[in-house]
């Protein structure tokens, strides 16, 4: 039997670049196939060829053995190929079923009227057939990201897709939603659908896919069965060399108190308390990790510290100075670097080139500004230095930010912020969307900053990242730290409990909760770590040294 999808010797050239070089890919019907590779390896280009967005320079796309020639996604959709983009294409104020049928509505009255009943019925029938738990009458704006993704899948199925392409489907999902997505994969494949998903996460490919194809620099490095391959082997295929899976932390003497947060309350946009009565402190030469399910107040905490959001009450002291009433600019001027979580909204101006983006935040400061005048030569040098040092691709300072891939955008932001010579780095999801090789480099840079005595507040949804890098690990749940633990000794189960809002009573908490206790026994000091401030504090940090074994990357 012919494979459901067979890409035969696909080569795709762009002016000056070969994005795909003679790539073969065969996907069996009813299987889940992961397309794995680093940023810029050519994964999305290859899928865009399959989806009809690009015409291959050479090679053939075959579906069930039949050669196809797609001029546009419309042709691909007609042939049964559906693609679910990373950023959903849904109309927020409309209902689920309206979104699903949008563009292909069943019509009556000779095409003048949308047959709403038939449309809704079709959507209900479809979601029942695949066991999707989505309310057809819910408004898109009101449902979770995971549900929105299922609506996207329904959209593709409604259009008759047999082959579903998903671009980084887990990037926007919580761990629970990821599990649910895997369940959806099972449902779909049982009914004979074929799934190809793009990923740069090893774990994801290993747990969700039947087969994995690794792309590197536009070339198919190999296709392997997920059951027969290890993480390390996959990583080596992707990067082309051996990868150290764990960053190497070294013992570090904590320095001066850089950040001191006391009884902080922060409200979100709707006026609901997102951070409640939070207190902690952070010293130079220390990395404080904040773990937690997204949406438990991490964003608001970070925004209150960096000056993007006013705190409802409480105090943030930065190097001894109260930041209450201080603007974002005041805080930038005082040496706070900030890697924001939404890089395309905040971190970069999408229509600016990298020269212009390189001075975002420093546009009033020398060497980029002299007496109100901008020095574009200095800006260019700066941008080029960041591009080179942080391996931003393509290495072109004149490229607009929106033309860069997500991972490269992120590398540029991280580079810009790290090179600010900061005293405090607030990093939210610094390696989100970044490939393994660059992630390693960014981790090393974070540790270098720590070695230079800078303070780092690291918020990440990657547990291995916060656990591996942090000296202390705070777990956040509903606006509070449910615990500040020693990342070296804490287990994943314990972190999971803390993330779910439960507290721990055992010893693992003891070593690390000390800084809070030292800060004066505030109300929300977690657990029972209120004894032996200094000694235990040293323990906590030493513990982090040996923490490497504890991390399973």
């Amino acid at each position: 039997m012919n494979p459901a999808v067979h890409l035969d010797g696909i080569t795709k050239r762009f002016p000056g670049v070969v994005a795909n070089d003679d790539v073969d890919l065969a996907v069996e019907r009813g299987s889940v196939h992961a397309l794995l590779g680093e940023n810029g390896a050519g994964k999305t280009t290859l899928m865009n060829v399959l989806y009809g967005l690009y015409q291959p320079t050479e090679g053939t796309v075959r579906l069930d053995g039949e050669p196809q020639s797609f001029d546009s996604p419309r042709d691909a959709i007609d042939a049964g190929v559906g693609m679910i983009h990373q950023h959903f294409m849904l109309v927020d104020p409309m209902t689920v079923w309206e979104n699903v049928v949008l563009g292909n509505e069943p019509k009556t009255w000779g095409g003048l009227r949308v047959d709403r009943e038939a449309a809704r019925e079709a959507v209900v029938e479809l979601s029942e057939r695949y066991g999707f738990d989505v309310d057809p009458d819910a408004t898109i704006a009101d449902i979770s990201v995971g549900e929105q993704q299922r609506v996207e899948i329904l959209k593709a199925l409604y259009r008759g897709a047999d082959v579903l392409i998903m671009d980084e489907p887990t990037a926007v999902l919580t761990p629970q939603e990821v599990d649910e997505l895997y369940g959806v994969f099972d449902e779909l494949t049982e009914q004979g659908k074929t799934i190809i998903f793009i990923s740069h996460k090893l774990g994801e490919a290993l747990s969700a896919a039947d087969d994995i194809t690794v792309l590197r620099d536009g070339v198919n490095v190999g296709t392997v069965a997920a059951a027969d391959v290890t993480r390390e082997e996959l990583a080596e295929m992707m990067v082309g060399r051996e990868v150290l899976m764990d960053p190497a932390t070294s013992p570090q003497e904590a320095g001066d108190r850089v950040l001191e947060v006391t009884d902080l309350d922060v409200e979100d946009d709707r006026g609901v308390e997102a951070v409640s009565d939070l207190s902690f402190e952070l010293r130079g030469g220390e990395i404080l990790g904040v773990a937690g399910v997204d949406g438990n107040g991490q964003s608001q905490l970070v925004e209150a510290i960096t000056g993007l959001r006013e705190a409802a009450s409480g105090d943030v002291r930065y190097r001894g100075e109260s930041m209450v009433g201080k603007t974002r600019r005041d805080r930038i001027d005082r040496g706070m670097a900030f890697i924001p979580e939404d890089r395309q909204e905040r971190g970069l101006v999408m229509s600016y080139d990298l020269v212009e983006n390189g001075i975002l935040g420093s546009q009033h400061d020398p060497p980029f500004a002299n007496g109100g005048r901008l020095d574009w030569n200095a800006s260019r040098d700066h941008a080029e230095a960041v591009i080179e040092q942080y391996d931003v691709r393509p290495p072109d300072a004149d490229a607009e930010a929106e033309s860069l891939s997500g991972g490269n955008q992120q590398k540029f932001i991280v580079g810009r912020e790290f090179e600010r010579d900061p005293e405090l780095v607030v990093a939210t999801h610094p390696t989100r969307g970044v490939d393994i090789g660059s992630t390693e480099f960014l981790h090393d840079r974070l540790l270098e900053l720590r070695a230079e005595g800078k303070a780092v507040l690291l918020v990440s949804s990657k547990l291995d990242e916060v656990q591996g890098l942090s000296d202390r690990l705070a777990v956040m749940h509903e606006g509070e730290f449910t615990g500040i633990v020693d990342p070296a000794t804490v287990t994943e189960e314990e972190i999971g409990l803390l993330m779910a809002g439960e507290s721990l009573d055992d010893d693992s908490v003891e070593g690390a909760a000390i800084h809070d206790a030292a800060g004066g026994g505030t109300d929300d000091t977690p657990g029972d770590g209120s004894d032996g401030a200094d000694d235990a504090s040293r323990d906590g940090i030493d513990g982090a040294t040996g923490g490497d074994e504890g991390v399973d990357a």
Partner: protein
Amino acid sequence: MSDPNPDADGDPSVFARVVAPFVDRSVAERLVISVAAIFLSILVGFALVLVSGRIAECSTAAWTMPITGLGFCYNPFEVYVVLFNGALGYPFAVGDPGLFNPGWTPFNLSFGLTLSETTLLIFTGLSVAVAFRAGLFNIGTQGQLVVGALATALTVLALAPLLPAGPVAGLVLIVVGTAAGAVGGGLWGAIPGALKAYADANEVITTIMLNFVAANVAYVLVLEVFRAEGSSVVATRYVPEYAQFPSVLFPASTDFALIALLVGVAFIGALYYFVEHTSLGYDLRTSGVQAAAAEYGGVNAKLTTVRAMTLSGALGGIGGSVWVLMSEGRWMASIPDLGFDGITVSILAGNNPIGVLPAAFLFGILKGGALEIGFRTDVPTELVAVLRGLIILFVAMPEFFRMIGRYAGVGGAGGAGSTKPDESAGGDGGEADA
């Protein structure tokens, strides 16, 4: 032109499909589009002139269509020839042997009128453009112009008796008067700016309303307090001749001063420099294209809004100063719609200060040419206004689509710019539910 790849978003709405191709055009492509649009508008206008020429009644046909022998009251060729040639003062000899008119000099009446309009529209166009760059839609340039004009007239009239008449006093009065116009317009612009920044009031609404407030308050003030004695219209006294921009080279009746045009061009350069090469300009345009990123970069959004509206108002006010000191010589109630035309000039210019010059010039030509058509042909002025409107509509529409598309977030990464083997943008948690 490169393939705009309109289907990049999988299944975009009709709106997105229509608008997206305009979003990612390069400057050169947009220029080509503009020129093509002018020709298209001429084609449509041509038909319009023919039809109305057929409907209208006249004793002798101005033009007879070959072959068919149908007579038309208006000659469409003549209309457009007069429109463009006349606006420049007939540099081209139509019908006579030779392409150029040997007696032509640039310093003629028609060209002066064209340039006079151009000069005024430079200021109002810049006023709208600078607000646009900060992401603000200033419909209130007209009101700011009215206030600026009044401030200028009153200041000059108040100061003139204190100074001995002469060129030195003239220079002082022009400078001080223009500064007064800038301050007046600037304050008038700062009001909607502050309302937007601190009371979250939509600047489109407030600026429109402030236009009426400005026009009517100024009207009553002049009517009751500052009206010139014996004047039949609601107007102030004339400012002294020496306090007006002198009409060097051009006939005095053109109401055009080359110096004022040069000042306008200098403002274009200064504003371009401000927007592209200063820290404050960076703040301003970053707020305009991506407010969240500007805030992240330490830009005070409220202050920037007030600043941009003040600057915009000041430019509108200077437009009013120039209108008083160059065109009218006094403040009077029937001020032309220079502020509203400034909106179209700015859109036509893509809100780029440099682009304001050709856009204002095109407007000047249409204005000057319309006057000529009125002198030279039987075509009614209303029809000329329609032809003007057509040209503006056709030329501005692609640019307008582009702005709307940018505003709606259509195009961009999926468009012509992204012919690179990119992975699509990486995982941004908050994006999807935004």
